[in-house]
């Protein structure tokens, strides 16, 4: 077992990175004076992993959409009852989520940490699926899918991704479809479980009022060593061009919602570094935050409102896009105004004062996030699964140069690679 202490002078915090002999990566972020502890046990396995190749097999395999999410639901059940019932005895607030690239099981607690941690480590390592229990979940997940069918924000986002990407599995809904989940069998679940829930592909991240020794003792007792099998994600090559530059649908809404953005050219399966991420955070803050000229113009033209307007650099394995979204009476006009601003900034160059201000603002937001045990544990997991380190990101932010930001603007924002997705009221 190797242990490394990672320190940030900027944040005044530290955490431990441990490669456990079972193969599991463990990140422990002690915050002695907190009253809570937040634990995340996750696997690098999300909705985009529908085609994969195991290192002990020759050929790649494709499985139905929605399996990662289905597994998340079913793992809560084991032969001797369900995990929620076990947590009920410790009082921990437990949950789980599936994203595009990971599945995480988590809890937050004010006491009985080690009892709850034992439950977490146990149930995630104890799959139990039967025909009957798999069938029962279809009604529940079916309703979850239908809830998202009526959620205009979810719809405008997936419509955007499906217009932007031609091949990448980011196009697929995280929960799958009512049709695809009907095809899921216990065998599929076991197969994906045994492939992705290998401890070498997983991480345990805990932040809060914890004792490192005690956590590690429990891990020694509970972790079942995994065979050294690695798993490779298999992606088709994604063209640089978008599939459709405009896409829209009608839903029961009172005003149109939009998502507009640029497709970044990235290599198949590749990930961005801490520095690249920091560059994009500062760039977007400069371009579209409340204090930017663009935001002001959009607001004065009555094209957006503060409550709904937002922006994001959304990226992962083999995909990257900058997107702007919200509600607007005229989404086309919003897109035109953003385009115009991009051209102006490319032509005139980014403003140095705005750069310094944006850096301070992003720095403050990141320091603030280190208050909460939940946001720390989730950030550790998110960074780890994307091959990044949390404090290096803070350092990268501080060291950033304006020229890098300008370069990113020129590279990522390409007019011929935009998508405008709109959800309109039913006419």
């Amino acid at each position, binding site marked *: 077992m190797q242990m490394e202490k990672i320190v940030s002078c900027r944040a005044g915090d530290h955490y431990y990175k441990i490669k456990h002999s079972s193969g599991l990566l463990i990140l422990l972020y002690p*915050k002695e*004076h*907190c*009253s*809570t502890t937040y634990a995340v046990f996750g696997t690098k396995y999300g909705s985009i992993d529908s085609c994969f190749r195991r290192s002990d097999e020759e050929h790649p395999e494709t499985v139905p959409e929605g399996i990662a999410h289905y597994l998340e639901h079913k793992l809560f059940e084991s032969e001797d009852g*369900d995990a*929620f*019932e076990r*947590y*009920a*005895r*410790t009082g*921990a*607030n*437990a949950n789980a989520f599936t994203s595009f690239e990971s599945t995480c099981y988590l809890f*937050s*607690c*004010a006491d009985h940490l080690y009892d709850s941690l034992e439950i977490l480590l146990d149930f995630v390592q104890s799959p139990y699926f039967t025909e009957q229990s798999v069938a*029962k979940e279809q*009604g*529940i*997940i079916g*309703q979850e899918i*239908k*809830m998202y*069918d*009526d*959620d205009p924000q979810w719809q405008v986002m997936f419509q955007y991704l499906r217009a932007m990407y031609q091949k990448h599995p980011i196009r697929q809904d995280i929960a799958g479809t009512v049709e695809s989940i009907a095809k899921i069998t216990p065998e599929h679940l076991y197969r994906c479980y045994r492939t992705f829930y290998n401890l070498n592909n997983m991480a345990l991240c805990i932040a809060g009022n914890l004792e490192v020794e005690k956590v590690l003792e429990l891990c020694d007792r509970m972790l079942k060593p995994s065979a050294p099998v690695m798993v490779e994600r298999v992606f088709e090559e994604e063209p640089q061009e978008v599939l459709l530059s405009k896409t829209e649908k*009608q*839903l*029961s*809404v*009172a*005003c149109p*919602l939009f998502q507009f953005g640029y497709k970044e050219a990235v290599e198949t399966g590749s990930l961005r570094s801490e520095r690249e991420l920091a560059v994009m955070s500062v760039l977007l803050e400069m371009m579209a*935050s*409340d*204090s*930017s*000229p663009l*935001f*002001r113009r959009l*607001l*004065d033209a*009555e094209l957006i*409102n503060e*409550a*709904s307007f937002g922006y994001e650099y959304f990226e992962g394995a083999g995909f990257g896009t900058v997107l702007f979204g919200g*509600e607007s009476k005229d989404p086309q006009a919003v897109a035109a105004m953003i385009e115009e601003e991009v051209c102006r900034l490319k032509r005139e160059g980014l403003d140095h004062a705005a750069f310094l*201000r944006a850096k*301070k*603002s*992003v*720095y*403050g937001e990141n*320091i*603030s996030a280190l*208050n*909460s045990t939940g946001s720390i544990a989730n950030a550790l997991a998110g960074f780890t699964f994307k091959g990044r380190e949390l404090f290096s990101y803070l350092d990268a932010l501080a060291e950033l140069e304006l020229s890098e930001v300008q370069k990113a603007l020129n590279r990522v924002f390409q007019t011929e690679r935009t998508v405008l997705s709109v959800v309109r009221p*039913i006419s």
Partner: protein
Amino acid sequence: MSEITSFPITESVNLKAFTDSRFKTMKIAVDMFIPISKLTAAQYGILPSLVSRATKDYPDYTALSGRLAELYGASLDSGVRKMGTYQVLSLSVSGISSRYALEKEDMFRELSSLLFSVLFDPLKNAEGNFLPEHFEQEKRQLLELKDTEFNDKILYAHQRCEEVMFLGEPAGVDRYGSKEEIAALKLEELSDAWDELLKSSRYEIFLLGDCEPEPSLFQDRFQNFGAPRKLNYLPCPSSLEPRRVTEELPLSQSKLSMGFRVNFRPEERLTFQLMNAVLGGTPSSKLFRNVREKESLCYYCSSSFDAGSRALYVESGVETENLERTEQEVLHQLSLLQAGEVTEEELHSAKMALRNAMRSVRDSLNAVENWCISRIFEPVFESPEASAERLMKVTKEEVVSAANRVMPAAVFCLKGCGER
């Protein structure tokens, strides 16, 4: 562990401090309580965002936002909510603590002076009015917020249920007033409305996180504001006729929102909170285990307790053809609880979950503020830890007796129909 400390400033202004250097941030908040009425809801509702749009030193939105960004992404927030028969208007500032400020700014001074300037010296024109362009901007955004609330069908169903349940009562007034009332607002009336609000509100002030509490600073500023006001829970009728409203919309999933009124004395609040947790507040509750897990009827079915309004809600999203069955199943689970069919394990699980939530409060500045605000009607303030201790002593008989005082008051069905 630091304590939540009260500093009464006057009969109408109370300050609570919870300061602790383990936080990397601070927050200063002013919450104003005023009785809600159809006549003034829209007027008062627009004011927090209007006064915080700009200040004399930073006279437009971009300049003010720029200043906040320079202060390491600090925020100046406004909010409006409803608690029982009160409209609660909030203004707050938050930011990183001074020890992280790269240029050694005194963050507490910077942030408190920003907050004071929007509260006591908001930007006005030569005629003494708020700036017309700011007014128009806020009015438009509030009207658009109404559209946003319709877009979110879970929220929409909940709001409609509340409206139906409290029809004709002050508690049924929207926190921002209606669309028509917002559209009819007059700029000339708002300056006086703000002065009236400052004069007649009950104030709760919070100093939270990594900062030095300076109650004297606030004592000076708030000395002459506010009106002493005894804040009370919404009265609950002794009997009522349940109401039912159904609306149809082209949706994939139908929403069921059931409203109940619960008559409890202030000292019984904790028992009712526990009863709510047993019924539908946690994954080990009756609703989650039966309506979702056993019957597979839905993805979510949960209950929530709104103490200020003495109300309880049960909400779910289901297939249209299962609306009736789900409603029956919810009532069945409630009747089991009323008949005393609750196991020691169910009771213990609910207690553990609630205790965990209470013991977690001190880890978040917002949670501390919410804890205090939501206990504003209590005769004596109780800390989260003291509540947690008292909670563990509540008996099964008390929970069952509480369940028997839950009165069905309203059902709102949002029926999904046809193709989208």
